[in-house]
């Protein structure tokens, strides 16, 4: 017996909704599972005290600071470079061999797994350049990793700026650089910020690359030349070593909450940006 087109339509749509529903359910489950077990262990002291006896007791302050340092530094390095690359691609050149090379580089870099970045960071920054396991090594590695995201999102944001803006700017007698900095970047800023914010999210959740470059010292980092354990690595170690499940859940909750916050912020920026562009 053949199924009539109408039936197959109904079945297909139901299946699609079921799939999407299941996907949302998985997401909701992961988030609520972690928060359910973790939220009650997040206290003020947990956030403001260093860990004691390997993380069994005490808090995660050094890890929060380490994460902020590694992430902040990575984005601070990657953002200017990435945005400059995007400006070059959109405003300073035509499509040609050069843009093809740049795009190929960015696309390939985007596809490289984080463990390869980790291996590279380990042999290049940690050993060859002698930076040791340090915040700096970790940040440089992560900067390379998020660079393609920043180039790509900035490029899209800049391209979305209407051509008329540029024409007006030129018409008023500005140089190209003035046009780019005063007009184009200004209107593309929310879009660019979205990319940067997403990169921050990606750096926060990265573990493999950080493990091989920033090390896992639990102490309070006093400079960028010291090793520091990030939150995600701390969570990994706590849960794998079975040191303290309550602290592991609490650390994961801090991670999940910051990722949630970052994504909501990016989403808000994006909507603002889209509303503006239309």
């Amino acid at each position: 017996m053949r199924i009539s087109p109408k039936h197959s339509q109904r079945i297909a749509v139901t299946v699609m909704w079921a799939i999407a529903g299941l996907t949302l359910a998985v997401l909701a489950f992961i988030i609520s599972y972690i928060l359910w077990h973790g939220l009650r262990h997040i206290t003020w002291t947990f956030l403001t005290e260093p860990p004691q006896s390997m993380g069994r007791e005490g808090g995660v302050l050094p890890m929060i600071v380490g994460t902020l340092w590694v992430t902040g530094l990575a984005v601070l390095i990657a953002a200017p470079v990435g945005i400059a690359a995007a400006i070059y691609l959109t405003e300073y050149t035509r499509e040609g061999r050069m843009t093809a090379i740049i795009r190929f580089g960015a696309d390939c870099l985007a596809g490289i797994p984080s463990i390869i970045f980790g291996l590279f960071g380990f042999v290049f920054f940690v050993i060859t350049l002698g930076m040791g396991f340090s915040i700096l090594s970790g940040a440089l590695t992560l900067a390379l990793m998020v660079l393609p995201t920043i180039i790509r999102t900035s490029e899209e944001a800049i391209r979305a700026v209407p051509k008329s803006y540029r024409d007006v700017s030129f018409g008023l007698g500005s140089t190209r650089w003035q046009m780019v900095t005063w007009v184009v970047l200004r209107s593309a800023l929310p879009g660019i910020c979205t990319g940067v914010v997403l990169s921050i999210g990606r750096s926060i959740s990265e573990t493999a690359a950080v493990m091989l470059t920033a090390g896992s010292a639990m102490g309070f980092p006093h400079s960028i030349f010291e090793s520091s354990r990030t939150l995600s690595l701390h969570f990994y170690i706590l849960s794998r070593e079975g040191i303290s499940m309550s602290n592991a859940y609490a650390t994961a909750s801090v991670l999940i909450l910051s990722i949630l916050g970052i994504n909501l912020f990016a989403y808000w920026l994006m909507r603002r940006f889209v509303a503006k562009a239309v």
Partner: protein
Amino acid sequence: MRWALTTAALLLALVLVCVDWRGGKTTPINVIGSTSIQPFAEMLAEEFNKRPTNNLQQNWTVDVQGGGSTAGLQAAVNGMADIGMCSRELKKTPEEAGTFTPIVIARDGLAIVVHPSNPLNGVTKSQIQKMFEGQITNWKELGGRDQPVRLITREEGSGTREAFQKLVMGKSRISRKALTQESNGSVKELVKHDPAAVGYMSLGLVGAELKALTVDGAPATAAEVVANRYPLIRPFLFVTKGPPSDKAKLFIDYVLSPPGQQMLEKEGLIGAPNKLEQP
């Protein structure tokens, strides 16, 4: 637009404030190596960094990193570490025994752990060897339940694995079917939940949730290790390249001091002979 810049600036300020808070200039004593010793070393480091200091010592803080025994030895050679941690005996080669000064900070038993519901209480060393070679594949063969033996081993290069290899396996290889886990903790987690599993781990970390098997008739307890009756014992070593440097010695002396040793014993390790060993 301004808000975006403001947010960024605030975030940056926060980072900087967080870091400068507690500023204080300190020079680290880097301790790198075995993940088995790492938790204990971190605990010792915490106390070392916290204790009241005089003018001479206040600039030193101990910084502990994992990475594994082999990485620890390497780090000690290339100067990245002031002290390397190694959870097995040094090999009698010029690269190891010829280069390093080993200091035994504690001794540790290697426990053979199973699920608490496992009816088996004791095994012999050769039975363990046969199990991990993959020759004994069912618990029935050892007088246990009729279920397959699930081997859990540590990764290649781990000090615990090398100690196990040397103490139990000898020249024979660990079965390729063995599940490989990267830490004592994950071995523990796995065995805790799997009635068919058998693994090996640091005796100090076994805890109450697992059953440690009697080996060759000697129960796996601290007392048996101290009495040298339990057959699977390995040293926990601090190694330095050549004789220890002055700052390395500060921490080593602390670890070997009575408070340091007491802390280790409280955690289930067995104290060291309280002296520096000569190479």
